[in-house]
Each structure stands twice: as C-alpha cells, then as structure tokens.
C-alpha cells in the first residue's frame, strides 16, 4: 500500500528555501516603496507600510496601528525566521527539537494568511475613497511587492514538508 500522502511529491526543502529567499527579497521593496497615496484638495501624501502605521499611531488609533504592524511587518518577518529554523531543522533531521519545530510549522501555516490584511485594506480603500479632488486613495507599487512577498511566504510554507523534521526518527510504539 502506498502510504505517501497526497501532494508530498511537490514538497521539498530546496523549493521552500528558494521561495523563502524570494519572499525576503520582495519584502525590501515592499517596505521601502509607498503602498498608498492619498490625494486631498490637491495635496498628495504617500505612505509606506511603516509610515502608514506610524500615522495611525499619531492619530491615536494605536490598536489599529498595532494590528497593521503585526499583520504587515511582524508576521512576514516571523514567517521567514520560522522558515529558516525549519529548513535548518530539516537539514539536521530528527532531534529533540522536532516536536517544537513541528509546532512552529503549524503556527506559521496558521498566521500566514493574516499578512494579506494590508492587501485587502489597500484594495478596499482604493475602491471606496474616490471623491475626485476632495479625496482619492491610489494604490502604489509597494503593495504589489508586499502581496508578492505574502504569496511567496505562503507557498514556501506549503512547499516545506514537516515530515523532514522527523526523518530518521524511530517510530514511537506503545
């Protein structure tokens, strides 16, 4: 009987590492380029992810600023660090850390989706705030880079096979 799980043939560490590296590269323009430009009464203001969150904080909307910072800056970085740990763990094979690293994998798999928050936010604001010269929100290239980074981190997590953390580990028996 073939006990290999569905999709396992698509999973391997080099693919995951390549996707994680590509995601890390895309995070640079994602954080340096403006994601949104707000035009009000002829005045234009462009914001990066970080400057947008800082502006929210200045306005007293610190819970929203924290949500944006967590979803758009902390989670992508945590995902890349976590993927790095997983890839190192997979190289080492089964160890006393395998159980902990498996939990890291489960956590990464869960939190990845929340990074899409800023992408949905930009799309929603661009669709709603279009009052001509009064006020208009225009999406900028930073949001494309950010969306690419998010998609790549999700693909990297999916490409990683968590069973590689347990390779050569003897099966438990009761």
């Amino acid at each position, binding site marked *: 009987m073939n*006990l290999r*799980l*569905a*999709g396992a043939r698509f999973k391997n560490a080099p693919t995951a590492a390549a996707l994680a590296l590509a995601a890390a590269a895309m995070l640079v323009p994602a954080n340096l380029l403006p994601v949104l430009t707000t035009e009000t009464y002829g005045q234009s203001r462009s914001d990066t992810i970080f400057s947008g969150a800082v502006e*929210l904080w200045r*306005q007293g*909307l610190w819970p*929203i600023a924290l*949500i*944006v910072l967590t979803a758009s800056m902390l989670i992508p970085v945590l995902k890349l660090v976590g993927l790095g740990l997983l890839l190192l763990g997979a190289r080492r094979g089964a160890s006393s850390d*395998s*159980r902990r690293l*498996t*939990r890291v*994998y*489960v956590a990464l*798999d869960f939190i*990845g*989706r*929340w990074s*899409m*928050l*800023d*992408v*949905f*936010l*930009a*799309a*929603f*604001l*661009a*669709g*709603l*705030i*279009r*009052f*001509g010269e*009064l*006020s208009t929100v*225009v*999406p900028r290239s930073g*949001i*494309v880079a950010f*969306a690419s980074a998010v*998609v790549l981190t*999700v693909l990297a997590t*999916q490409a990683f096979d*968590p*069973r590689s*953390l*347990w390779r050569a*580990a003897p*099966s*438990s*028996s*009761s």
Partner: protein
Amino acid sequence: MGLNAPLICHLCGQEHRAIRLEPGEKALCVRCDAVLAQGVRARSHTALVFAITGLALAWPAALLPFVSAGKFGAERISLLFTGVRILWNSGMRALAVLVLLCGGLLPLAYLVILAVLHAPTRLDRQKSCFRLLVRSANGLEHWAIPEVQVLAVLVAMIKLGSIVNVAIGSGFWCYCAMVFSLLIAQHTSRFNPTVPLSAAGATGAAVPL
C-alpha cells in the same frame, strides 16, 4: 474509509491504527501531538447546511452595497469587488486577481466543494473524483481567506472614521454571515483539512502501529 486503514500523521508521518472515537474526542499523534481525527459532535448534515447557507449569502454579499462613504455631500457606494475593478484599471492586474480569488472566488469554490462532499448522495470515497475534491478542499483552505477581508474592512472603517462618513451596507453583513457560515461548515466538516487526506471521513482515533 474504515477502521482497518492506517492513519498517517500529516505532520510527522507516524502511522497509527484507527479505533472508534466518541463525539468530541480527539485523536492526537503520539509523536508530534497533531490532531489526527476528531469524533464528530455535530450532525453529519451541519456542514452541508452551513455550506448551502454560505452559498446563498454569497450573491447578496457581492451585489448589494458593501460600504458607503460620504464627504461634503458627495457619496460613494462601494461593492465587494469595486476595489478589484479599481486595481485592475490601475494596471495592477495580478493584485486584482489575487484579491478577487482570495476574497471571493476561492471561498465560493470552497463552499461548493464542502456542499458536494456532504451532499446526501455521497460520492464513492474510493473514487478519484472524491479524493480530488478532498484534496482541493485542503488546498483551498490556505487561499480562501474572507475572514481577513472582513478584518481589513473593519480596520479601514475605523481608519476612515475621522475623515469621511462611513456607513455599512447590507452587502457587508451578508458577507460577514457568509464568512461565519464558511467557518462553521469548515469546522464541522468530516473532511477537515487538519485531518490528513488518508484519514478523511474516518471516525477513528489512533494508537501507534
């Protein structure tokens, strides 16, 4: 799938022998603690009911006003996919497709698959189309993320509150109800993605082989 087939942990590959579970009981992998199978507490048709409810709510969510914003007498009504259209027209077509897929089409596809999998005339579980549907549901779980879109809209409305007058439309409430239905259908599904494909539909628990 019966109790004779082994359950394989999708996280560590440990094989287990299946045993019957009581409702609410969970079978954990002895090696990595992953959930291998759950005793179904909800009735078998709960997932079907919520999947159909979600599908019914998807249409008003897409067609009714989502959110409206007003400033100095000017009012703008936004639908669920207005932002997608703006992104498309701005030349950000890949981004528009991504938002359309993750916030609209894939959740819809996920609901359709859940409804088909739990339909009274169940597919033969040994057939390849059944396995394909279960696999598709497991794959869609990562990309169908309407709950993130709901959070984004709430964040945006708080952010805009001091700049423009924002009013929630009935489309947004329908979308929220659709998301709720999707999450319940997913959680009560007999083909929950947290349970490996090889154990899909099993009512078994696990002891190591």
